[in-house]
Every structure is written in structure tokens, then in C-alpha cells.
């Protein structure tokens, strides 16, 4: 078997033990390519555990700039004996295995069709260091150095990254640089470079490399959020923590050192959303960050927010099902429970970002929408976007932009005798005016309830009053259609009767899949949905095609269900393409699924040039 050869286009996967300090070394490995102008797409696959269980980190080096997972592994850095067998099995034929060769392994532990690269990491560490923790941590830096030499990564780039990471701690920088060279020198003295190589390029541009949770937390700062109430839950925790850190940096009153924000770690998700609703009722922009189980617990309050018309923002970083295990894996499986959260007739506005750049934008936008629409806005991230670093457009802000506080009647308007009915549809858009508590001594006060009140907020159990009110809420939902981000349409090179609809983190894999299919002569028009309620374009798109694939990362085709339900779409027109094993969806999967159901592709001359075609 000929060893794989590729420049700037391969997948390296690290198999580590959780808690061994490998994460920062692996991230540095990924970032070294970016500094050489070569895009990467990196993903953590981690257990629900602090220490001891297996964890993986996958780096796709991709000069073409694909942001999705490719699937398959060209080089495995096998640092975890527990998962040796399955890690070995995952390597592509012709691929490479990098391992710690301190302890000899029998030939049966290897494969014939791969290249085995052994570096005696443990022995090198034991000879160089005496403190056990140092032996463990520097082992990671040593293997990064060895990989750099094997893959032609510029060592100066990694030295610079180390200098930035340990800025101000000169001793640590020197020690890590020494470890880095220890690994590189070993390779140069004992091994040959591999068929996989890095080469300086100019394909990163001014893009930044950041996690979606961090971007969303920053979005909340720019969106004017002042109250955050949250309960720790993977994979959303780092969102609240990022908000906390950004607030410390950007929201501290320079004169007094006091906080222009309040962050409370609540006793549970019910209290979190309760605080958000209380703060929203009182005119502050407030949010919580959570995941599926939190959404389940928040249902009653979300309904109250809907009926009592109180602004709230929920960042839902989606993950797999209940309890432990799958919850540290990614899914898009809360779409229905968010869209129709709570009892009674309710539906809610969803924003569907596809990458950290949109997490920032929609994170900020959510607060304007919640004040404008006086209801809960869900921002639906997932673990893949939230907890992985992505290459994304730089954050930008228009300094002329102001916060849209929505319809709030002021003291002066009340004083001037303007009619105030808390639930009165004065503009025909379904959105009434509200007042903040404490506005006026005698006017504008009202009693907030779920339902059972007339347009002037007075108690009523009349059926007709209830019906009028919930009909108005539907008008408001119609208004929301024009306020959520519009879908993004991307037509195939040739007219086609086949379409595909997708959203969120599926976007990265879909971009690549569309390129691959186009090159294969399979023409598919694509529509990326970015908000709910759905714009009319979504249903126009479906009407304009004979068959529409709906690609998403859950078992039940939740977006498909939502589209059928909201648009009265014939189920036969919508074909579900579903990926839900907890790993991020890949272009290989999408092209395979769609190609398998389409008529045979027309042959095209470019076909042989496609590097990562399906199958």
C-alpha cells in the first residue's frame, strides 16, 4: 500500500486521555497551520468526565477552506492505550500512526497498510524531567515538536504561539520551547518526513479563530444584555463564562470600578429563566444559556413570557439526549421543543446561526428582537459551533447602531395623556406598548398575568377576550417573520428541480457537499434557513422544486416537521437526510445520502479533480 501523500489537505486525529493537558497542545498544533496561512477545521470529541476517560481532537488541514468535518483519519496520534484498537482501525489505508514507542508492542497491535511512526515520548520525558506533572505536560509539547518536524510545520510559528500563550512567564516559555525542540530534534535524527505536508499559503485572510459560545457571549455584551442568570450545563457553560469575562473587561464603570451588569448562577434552570423574565419585565436585557435539559425545565416560564409578553433571550447550545454520555456530543435536536415550548398555544422565535460569526451577530440581534417583539427569542447553537474553534469572519460593529428598545411608553407620553393599554394593538402589528415599573405616579401601572386579561390588562375570563388576545399574538408572530434573519439561497450552476434545506452547523458540511455534487454533475439548489417563523421564501423554494432534501442532525427530522406543520407542505415533497450519532455531520455523508436517492449523475469532465468526492 502506497503511503498517502497530500499537501495542506489531510486529517490528523489526536487520541488522548481526558485531563492529561493535551487540549492546549493540540489547539496549538491546529493554530500553527492558521499562522502559516492554511485554514483548519478542528473539533473536540470529549467525554462527560474530568479525568481519565478517552478524548479526541480532530484537525482537518484544508487549504480549500472546508469548515466541516471530512470524515476519515489520515494520521492518528495515538496517545491513549484504552482506545488503541479502535483508533488504529479508523486510519485510512495508506495513512499514518504516530505513537509513543517507549514500550515495545507486538506486530499484532499494528496494521500492514499504514505507516507507523514511533517516538519514545515517555522515555524522553523520564530522562528530561523528574516531577510527574512535568513529565505528563511536556510530553504533549514534545509530540507537537515531533509532528512539526514530520509534517513540515514551521517551528518558529509554534515558538511564537508558545510565547503568546505564556506571555509574562518567561521560564515556562523557555521550558516549552526546549520540549518542542526535543521532539523535533528526535524526528530529524531518527525519522523521515511523511507524505503529509504543510506548506505556507495565504488562504486564512483576516478571519479569526474562535468558539461559538465565546462569540455568542460577546454578542450578548454588544446586544446590551445586563442581566445573565444561568445554571452550569455542558455545552453551554462557556457561553455564560465568556459573557462574564467580557463584562469584566468592557462593562466595568471606569470611575467606580462597579459592574454595569449582574450575573447570577442560579439554583437551577427554572430559576435562571425566572430571573431573566423578571429582569425583562423590569426593562433590563436579560438572558440565560442552557442546553436541552434546561429547555425542558424552562417550558412553563417560556409560555408565561409568550402570553405575558415579556422579553427574554435563551441561548440553547444543543447536544444529545438526557443524562450523561451523549450530552457531550453534538445534535440539532431541540428545534421542536424550542419552537413550541410550553403549554397552551405557543410558538417562539428561533435564530439559527451557522458559525461563530453569526453567533455574535444573532447573539446581539436577539436582544433587539426580544424587546421589539416582547417575547422569548431562542438562539439555537449546538455543541459543534459552541465548543469548537471555527475560522470565521472578524467581528464587526457599526458604531451608529443603537439598541432597539421596542415599544415602551414613557413618563412624558403618559403625562401627555396618551392612551395606554398594555395589550392593545395600536399599530396593527400585534405588538402593544409596555411600561417599565416605576415610570409614572398615577398612569401606566398594570397587573401582569399569563392570560385572562383584556387589552387594558384588567382581569377577564371571557372566552372572546381570550380569543382576541391569542389572535393578536398570531399577528405579532407574523410581524416576527419580517424581523428574523432571511434565509440564504444558493442556486446550482444549472436549473434544477432538486433542492436542499439546512441550517446551523450543518452549513459547513453542506457548503462542501454542494461543491462536490456540482462537480459530479448533480445540481441542487440550496436554502439555508436562519430564523423561525419561516419567511415566505422557504415555502416558495419548496414550491419551486419537485424534491427537497431537508438535512439536519437529529433522528426525527425536526426542521422538516416544523416546515410541514407551519407551511402545510406535502410530506412526500420533503426527504429527510438525518445524521444523529453525536459526531458533526460530514460532506461525505450528505453527498452519499443525496446521491443515493437521486437519478445517476451526468458525467462531467471535472469529476476526476474532485479530491473528496463521496464514496
Amino acid at each position, binding site marked *: 500500500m502506497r503511503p498517502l501523500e497530500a499537501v495542506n489537505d489531510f486529517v490528523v486525529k489526536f487520541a488522548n486521555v481526558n485531563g492529561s493537558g493535551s487540549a492546549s497542545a493540540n489547539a496549538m498544533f491546529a493554530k500553527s497551520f492558521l499562522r502559516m496561512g492554511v485554514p483548519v477545521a478542528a473539533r473536540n470529541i470529549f467525554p462527560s468526565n474530568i479525568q481519565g476517560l478517552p478524548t479526541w481532537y480532530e484537525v482537518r488541514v484544508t487549504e480549500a477552506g472546508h469548515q466541516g468535518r471530512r470524515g476519515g483519519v489520515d494520521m492518528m496520534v495515538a496517545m491513549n492505550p484504552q482506545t488503541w484498537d479502535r483508533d488504529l482501525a479508523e486510519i485510512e489505508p495508506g495513512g499514518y500512526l504516530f505513537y509513543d514507542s517507549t514500550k515495545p508492542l507486538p506486530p499484532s497491535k499494528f496494521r500492514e497498510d499504514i505507516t507507523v511512526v514511533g517516538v519514545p515520548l515517555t522515555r524522553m520525558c523520564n530522562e528530561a524531567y523528574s516531577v510527574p506533572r512535568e513529565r505528563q505536560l511536556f510530553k504533549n509539547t514534545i509530540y507537537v515538536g515531533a509532528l512539526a518536524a514530520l509534517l513540515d510545520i514551521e517551528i518558529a510559528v509554534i515558538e511564537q504561539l508558545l510565547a503568546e500563550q505564556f506571555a509574562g512567564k518567561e521560564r515556562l516559555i523557555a521550558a516549552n520551547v526546549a520540549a518542542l525542540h526535543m521532539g523535533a530534534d528526535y524526528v530529524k535524527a531518527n525519522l523521515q518526513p511523511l507524505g503529509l505536508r504543510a506548506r505556507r499559503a495565504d488562504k486564512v485572510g483576516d478571519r479569526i479563530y474562535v468558539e461559538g459560545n465565546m462569540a455568542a457571549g460577546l454578542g450578548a455584551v454588544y446586544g446590551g444584555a445586563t442581566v445573565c442568570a444561568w445554571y452550569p450545563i455542558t455545552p453551554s457553560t462557556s457561553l455564560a463564562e465568556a459573557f462574564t469575562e467580557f463584562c469584566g473587561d468592557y462593562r466595568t464603570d471606569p470611575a467606580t470600578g462597579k459592574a454595569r451588569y449582574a450575573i447570577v448562577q442560579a439554583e437551577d434552570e427554572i*430559576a435562571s429563566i425566572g430571573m431573566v423574565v423578571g429582569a425583562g419585565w423590569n426593562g433590563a436585557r436579560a438572558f440565560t444559556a442552557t442546553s436541552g435539559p434546561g429547555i425542558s425545565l424552562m417550558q412553563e*416560564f417560556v409560555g408565561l413570557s409568550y402570553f405575558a409578553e415579556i422579553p427574554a433571550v435563551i441561548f440553547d447550545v444543543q447536544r444529545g439526549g438526557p443524562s450523561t454520555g451523549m450530552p457531550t456530543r453534538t445534535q440539532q435536536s431541540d428545534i421542536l421543543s424550542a419552537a413550541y415550548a410550553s403549554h397552551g398555544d405557543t410558538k417562539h422565535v428561533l435564530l439559527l446561526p451557522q458559525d461563530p460569526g453569526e453567533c455574535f451577530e444573532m447573539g446581539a440581534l436577539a436582544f433587539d428582537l426580544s424587546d421589539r417583539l416582547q417575547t422569548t427569542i431562542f438562539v439555537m447553537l449546538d455543541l459543534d459551533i459552541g465548543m469548537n474553534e471555527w475560522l470565521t469572519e472578524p467581528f464587526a460593529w457599526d458604531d451608529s447602531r*443603537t439598541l432597539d428598545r421596542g415599544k415602551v411608553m414613557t413618563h412624558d407620553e403618559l403625562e401627555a395623556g396618551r392612551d395606554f393599554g398594555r395589550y392593545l394593538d395600536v399599530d396593527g402589528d400585534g405588538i402593544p406598548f409596555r411600561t417599565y415599573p416605576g415610570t409614572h405616579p398615577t398612569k401606566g401601572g398594570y397587573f401582569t398575568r399569563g392570560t385572562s386579561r383584556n387589552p387594558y390588562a384588567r382581569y377577564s375570563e371571557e372566552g372572546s377576550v381570550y380569543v382576541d388576545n391569542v389572535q393578536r399574538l398570531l399577528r405579532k408572530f407574523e410581524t416576527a417573520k419580517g424581523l428574523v434573519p432571511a434565509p440564504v439561497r444558493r442556486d446550482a450552476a444549472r436549473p434544477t428541480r432538486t433542492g436542499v434545506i439546512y441550517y446551523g452547523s450543518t452549513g459547513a458540511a453542506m457548503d462542501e457537499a454542494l461543491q462536490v455534487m456540482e462537480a459530479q454533475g448533480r445540481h441542487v439548489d440550496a436554502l439555508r434557513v436562519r430564523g423561525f417563523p419561516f419567511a415566505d421564501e422557504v415555502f416558495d423554494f419548496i414550491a419551486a422544486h419537485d424534491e427537497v432534501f431537508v438535512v439536519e442532525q437529529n433522528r426525527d427530522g425536526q426542521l422538516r416537521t416544523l416546515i410541514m406543520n407551519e407551511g402545510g407542505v406535502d410530506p412526500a415533497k420533503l426527504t429527510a437526510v438525518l445524521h444523529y450519532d453525536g459526531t458533526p455531520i460530514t460532506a461525505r455523508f450528505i453527498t452519499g445520502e443525496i446521491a443515493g436517492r437521486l437519478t445517476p449523475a451526468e458525467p462531467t469532465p471535472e469529476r476526476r479533480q474532485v479530491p473528496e468526492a463521496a464514496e
Partner: protein
Amino acid sequence: MTYITKPQLHHPRLVENALGKTRRDYEGSVSTLCAGCGHDSISAAIIQAAYELDLPPHRVAKLSGIGCSSKTPDYFLGASHGFNTVHGRMPSVLTGANLANRDLIYLGVSGDGDSASIGFGQFAHAIRRGVNMTYIVENNGVYGLTKGQFSATSDKGSKSKKGVVNHDSAIDLVSVALQLGATFVARSFSGDKAQLVPLIKAALSHQGSAFIDCISPCIQFNNHAGSTKSFDYVRDHNEAVNTLDFVVPREAIHLDYEPGTNTLVTQHDGSVLNLHKLAEHYDPTDRISAMAYLAGRQAQGEVVTGLLYVDPKATDLHEGLETVETPLNQLTDAELIPGSKVLERLNASLR
């Protein structure tokens, strides 16, 4: 049924307070509770306290959960913003509201089902966070709206109207509040307005988490022989540790008790609590001995009332979070949005 507007007619010689408001200006809509309900007496006490304190009604935010007690905020302070939230979750909503605007006065009204059962966790956590609020539980030991089930404050061995004996231990909210660090803890009785009104005034002036457990007999479902929350039982077993004169800062203090029988406590806002001792050696500023005293008297079947504990140096959640003096809901765009220059620097650090 629909909202009943109260007639605006009132006696021409009603006395006005310092704001030029009469007692009627602090009323709300007509109560829909049963005639003779203890909760209506508490509403009346709240009205009286707010009137006597010269509170601008719109500076009060009143919040409640679900249940008979939680309906009452509609029946007082009609010019205030009110919020009938969801069952057992008023404390979190109040906490959030308080975070948004630290300048308003927050009055939470709840019941024993709302606070000791479904909302026990939220009750506990709001208290331990030191939210600046007055939290009144209208405690009747029974579920009224759903017709007569025991609540978690029903005493062990007490009998329901249907004759069922309660086998579960009771949650004593006063003891819990003391343990969790409430900085103002009182118990009173809806039938004792003279005791209750000054306690509410003192609680509303307190700058920390103030809790009042107010025994409020349910005349429909829990006012029979065998109940420990009936008018007769509470009257027979009420042991007040003190009586309170609440003195606002500008008033002169008249001491008309025997020397050595009263305690003066000055709160943060300058208001003075003039406490006349009824129980010998009871020190309402000593939390530990208050807990011990309560436990001892409770074991004897007594219902201890009065101002049980006050910390004159109380602090609140905002002090812990070190938030700015300006209410968060009034911060301007310039104070909230870091702007594009900051993003440029941040972008540079993410490459």
C-alpha cells in the same frame, strides 16, 4: 367573572399622608377571596403600612406566585406594577426584577404551598442571596383554590376539615429563613393588625431580605377544631416576643416603656425600630439565640410572633455583585456597547 372596579367615592374627611394621598389611594381592586379570609386582613395591613410610610405606590413592584395568597397583590397598591407569575417561582422573578432596577421597593407575596412546597427551593435561594425585598408568606397551612389539601406547613398531627390526620413534619419557614441568612425575620397573625402593620413597615424599610411569616387562617378549609392554623388555635397559642413601634427617620422617638424593657434598632435608611420586650432576655439581634428560643417554644406548641431577628447592618445582592448605582435598566447605549475599536483589538487576539 370579570374585573370589578372599586367605587371611587370616599369619605371627604379621609386624612392625607405626606404625599397628599389617602388610604384609599393605596387600595387595589375588589377582593375575590372568601368573606372573612385572613389574606384580606394582610392586604389591608399592607395598604395601611404603605400609606403610613408615605410610599409612592408606583415605586413599589409587587410580585406573587399562584394560589389564594398570590391573587392578593391585585387587591392593594393599584397604581403599582404587579406580576402574577407562575406557581412557586415568584422569588426568581423578583430577583431578576430587582437586578434590573435596584431603586424600586420589591414586595413578594406568597403562600405556604407556593413557598414551602413547589417553591421551597426558590424561597430558600432568594433568601440566601440577600435579595432586597419584603417577602410575605400568607400561611394558612392548606391549599385553598384546590379545596383543602394539606400544605407543607401543616403541623404533624393536625387534622384536615375532612378529619384526615397529617403524618408529615411541618416546614417552619421562619426557622428556615433564619438559618439561610435572612436579615429580617418576623412572624405575625392576620388577626393582629396592631402587630402586623409596624412589622410590614419595618420590613419595607429594611435594606436586605426581609421575611414575614403571617399566619392567616383559611376560614373555608382550615379553621376547625384540630387545626393548628385556625383563629382559635393561634389566639390561644400566640406568644409575642415583643411589640414594635416603627419610627421613620424624621420622627421623634417617644419612649413610654419602663427603662430596660425596650430595644432600639436603627436600620440602614435611618429608620428606628423601637421594640418593647414581652419575653424576658429575648434579643432580636442575636440570630443563634433566636433560633434556639423558637425551637424551644415551638416544641411546647406555642406560636412565637413578633420581630424575631433583625440585622441592622444587612447587605444585599447588589452589594455582593458590586453593581453600579444606576439601575441596570437605565444604562445608556454608550455605557453598554463597547464599540468597534474594541472588536478590532479582540479580532487581532483571535488570529
